């Protein structure tokens, strides 16, 4: 790859008068003529890109007639999002009268594009309508019913753009709602305001998709405006060193028209070999400069800005005449279309209106494609409107674009890899896509796929490869979204766990403290109950408590406080031997009375009762025995009490 083809380029310099080039010249005659004209012709080396295909061009059908106008449709449906970025915000209300060119939805945030009324009329609805999108979805749209008067809002452009600051010109472009007209629809004002210094401005006039001739016809009929538009772009970008127009060598008339307008400019018109997808931004940059845009980066990082030729025209209109983007050139073609050609259509015109106005036999056409046969998408319904990025409506009959056969097995023949302009391995992507092996898909650079369809085009097994890649990309994006959500949930869970753990530890600490306190209390009560006369037990207590507190004081001072409090409570209960004596005496008398009652029962059984069984006698005897033991125990403790008084008073 990158073999330089090194021919077919001409640079117009002030000395050169453009000769009358006969129409239908070939690339050879270009260089011959060029050689013949003067020494002022420079040859720019152009490069090849990997892969590419040569599908039948089918462009002649739509280039026989000049650009025509369509009658006004009954209604215009204007989606708020016809560009990449944030949808515009409607600033009109239902029932409001609008003028042609009036702002009806303003750009919301920097990456957005305004929408204008394509004609005068009444806003009849602001609601969700089917929009042209490959997924057949609906989105908010403003519906205008034209009044047929075409009353313009007052508008004016700059007299001489050279006198204006780039910022002013950018504002004009932003206010005109211009978004890339080659198909992507990126707001142009953003693209023209890069952070980097731009040394190369590339105008994409390749139009490599079969059937589409919108740019071709625009160049033939509006070459002067386009060149002015390019000069405005160059002015905004600070006059880059090279300004290049890349045009495929199948557009000789457009070449002629443009080169007749080059005059004294430094714009280079470069003819490139016809090969799909030479009009892809990355491919065109490689062809013209020999450098590749690094993966995941913008061309601006190489000092390159690339814009479509239609965008340059729209920018000229916006800047010089103050006309916002309210119409565009669209190719209507295909065997089911009786009047194939290029039409100037108002943005928002329903496809059904275009079809009836251009004589499309709806019974014949099996599908409707918006865009070209390689990258266009089928329309779910003819009610959808044309938008800023619609460069073609293709109405083929069944023989023209037959429905695909069933897919056969992939035999890894590798024709797809030969055709891939991104040097991918489409067959491997297909296999990994089928097995949903996301890791391998990313290792095989799935996201560098530009979905040009060259692989599917050459596939002998009829496998809808691009569909697999789109699905896989969607899956991976979804997977990444899910992963972010899952990560967040995990983080939340971990924090929660940490908090619970911390609480549990605090609880344990508190329990430890209580246990220590209880232990101390138990020690104290053992000492009391056992009546161990000794000082030793109380000494133990008094010894152990400082020990405990000293042990714990290092770790938890609060705990030692608790222990002290517990000790104090314990001492309070200990302090009254008088009370204890009274308590014991009460228990002694209770035990004595219980003993007497049992003995009485044993001696004089109630006459009314049934004669007692032996079991009952035994139970009674046991109770008597228990009461006697209790009595003895209490007596013993009562005896022991006076001996306890001494030390406990000392303690106090």
């Amino acid at each position: 790859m990158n073999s330089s083809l090194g021919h077919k380029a001409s640079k117009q310099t002030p000395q050169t008068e453009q000769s009358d080039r006969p129409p239908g010249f070939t690339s050879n005659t270009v260089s011959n003529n060029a050689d013949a004209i003067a020494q002022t012709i420079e040859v720019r080396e152009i490069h090849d890109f990997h892969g590419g295909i040569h599908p039948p061009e089918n462009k002649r059908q739509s280039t026989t007639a000049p650009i025509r106008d369509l009658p006004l449709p009954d209604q215009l449906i204007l989606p708020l999002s016809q560009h990449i970025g944030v949808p515009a915000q409607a600033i009109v209300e239902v029932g409001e009268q609008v003028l042609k060119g009036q702002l009806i939805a303003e750009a919301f945030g920097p990456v957005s594009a305004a929408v204008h009324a394509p004609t005068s009329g009444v806003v009849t609805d602001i609601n969700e309508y089917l929009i042209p999108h490959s997924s057949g979805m609906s989105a908010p749209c403003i519906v205008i019913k034209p009044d047929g008067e075409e009353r313009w809002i007052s508008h004016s452009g700059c007299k001489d753009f050279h006198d204006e600051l780039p910022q002013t010109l950018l504002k004009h472009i932003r206010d005109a709602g211009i978004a890339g007209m080659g198909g992507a629809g990126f707001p142009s004002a953003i693209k023209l305001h890069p952070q980097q210094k731009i040394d190369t401005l590339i105008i994409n006039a390749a139009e490599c998709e079969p059937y589409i001739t919108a740019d071709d016809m625009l160049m033939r009929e509006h070459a002067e405006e386009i060149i002015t538009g390019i000069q405005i772009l160059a002015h905004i970008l600070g006059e880059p060193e090279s300004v290049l127009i890349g045009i495929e060598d199948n557009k000789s008339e457009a070449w002629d028209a443009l080169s007749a307008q080059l005059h004294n400019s430094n714009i280079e018109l470069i003819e490139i070999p016809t090969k799909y997808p030479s009009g892809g931004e990355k491919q065109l940059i490689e062809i013209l400069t020999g450098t590749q845009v690094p993966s995941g980066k913008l061309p601006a990082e190489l000092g390159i800005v690339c814009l479509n030729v239609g965008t340059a025209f729209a920018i000229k209109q916006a800047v010089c005449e103050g006309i916002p983007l309210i119409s565009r050139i669209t190719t209507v073609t295909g065997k089911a279309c009786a009047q194939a050609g290029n039409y100037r259509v108002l943005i928002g015109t329903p496809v059904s209106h275009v079809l009836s106005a251009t004589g499309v036999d709806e019974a014949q056409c099996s599908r409707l494609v918006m865009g070209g046969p390689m990258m266009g998408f089928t329309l779910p319904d003819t009610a959808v409107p044309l938008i800023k990025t619609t460069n073609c409506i293709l109405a083929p009959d069944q023989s023209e674009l037959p429905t695909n056969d069933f897919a056969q097995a992939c035999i890894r023949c590798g024709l797809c890899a030969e055709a891939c302009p991104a040097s991918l391995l489409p067959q491997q992507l297909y296999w990994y896509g089928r097995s949903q092996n996301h890791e391998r898909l990313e290792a095989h650079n799935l996201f560098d796929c530009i979905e040009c369809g060259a692989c599917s085009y050459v596939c002998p097994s009829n496998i809808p490869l691009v569909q697999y890649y789109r699905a896989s990309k969607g899956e991976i994006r979804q997977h990444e979204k899910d992963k972010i959500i899952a990560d967040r949930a995990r983080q939340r869970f971990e924090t929660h766990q940490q908090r619970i753990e911390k609480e549990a530890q605090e609880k344990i600490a508190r329990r430890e403290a209580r246990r220590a306190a209880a232990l101390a209390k138990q020690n104290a009560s053992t000492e009391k109950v056992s009546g161990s006369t000794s000082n030793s037990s109380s000494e133990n207590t008094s010894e152990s408590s400082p020990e405990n507190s000293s042990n714990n004081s290092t770790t938890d001072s609060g705990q030692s406080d608790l222990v002290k409090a517990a000790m104090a409570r314990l001492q309070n209960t200990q302090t009254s031997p008088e009370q204890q004596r009274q308590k014991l005496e009460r228990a002694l008398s209770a035990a004595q009375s219980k003993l007497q009652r049992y003995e009485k029962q044993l001696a004089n059984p109630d006459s009314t009762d049934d004669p007692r069984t032996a079991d009952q006698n035994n139970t009674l005897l046991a109770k008597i025995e228990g009461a006697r033991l209790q009595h003895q125990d209490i007596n013993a403790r009562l005896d022991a009490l006076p001996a306890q008084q001494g030390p406990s008073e000392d303690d106090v």
Partner: protein
Amino acid sequence: MALTQVTSPHTSEGASTSWVMQQLLLATLPGMAALTWYFGWGTLINITLACITAISCEAAILKLRKRPVMFYLRDCSALVTAVLLGLALPPLAPWWLVITGTAFAMIMAKHLYGGLGYNPFNPAMVGYVVLLISFPVAMTMWPAPRPLLPEGVDVPSLWSSLQIVFPILAAEPIDAFTMATPLDVFKQNTGQLVEQFYKSEALFVQGDLAGIGWETVNLAFLAGGIYLLARRIFTWHAPVAMLSTLALMTWFCFDGGSSASKGPLSLHLLSGATMLGAFFIVTDPVTSAVSNRGRLIYGSLIGLLVFVIRAWGNYPDALAFAVLLMNFAAPFIDYYTVPRTYGHDRARSALQKKD
């Protein structure tokens, strides 16, 4: 109006897998004709038997797997396997040998793995190796080429060929003249200089490149291969890598023609299954490496293995073994030969994780 909803692209080149397979079959014709001329009807009988077996096996398995039979049969891949195996087997081989090999190739090597596109090993080569290991005697009985038959003896007629293949048709067993293949003959040479050997051995006296008959057959397969290259059925990478590695190895190991020589360049390039392998087996896209760089490595390793086994192994020819061994390695080669994608500084490995 009911509008079809399909994804882009909406057009295609119109080539089909069965067209690819038919081109492949077409390209085998010169080789098939040469084999038939030198060795008689045997090759054609082999191919017919193999085709019938392959189609019946494929149809039966598709039926078992509840797949649309005609849809899959139409891709002609079964015929390709059958024809390649039929060409590789010795002419006049007994009928059961052909049927066993083909059935094994179709059922075990192809359909048990999932059918066309899913088989890791080249089915024809699996069939060949199974037969070579199981029935070594039958597999090495090559008939003598037409010019080397004794005075007054012609290659067997169609009827006697059929009687040889199906002994039941013959009242008494019919013998065919068999003889060793050039590679085999050369391997058995122990005492003679290459030059002397080429002058004394009948095979080489009349065919001084790589043995009478064999060199023509190989040149015919080469012609078929060049046709396929011209039609862009496959890229040049694998066959050229294989042939040049084989040539390089031969040149490197050729000692000027001593009795211990591993054989001259012409013998290795134009004898045995070299050209059939290079253009019809090594290029099988299903079982080879996928990228061009991978195919260069894949092809040259096959060339290397072919020479190593021919020179130092037990078998006179080695293509089937070399191909099967490299079929094992193909996925591994793929991991490390992913091409550099547009906009990337360098190629990355397929195993590389996301940064």
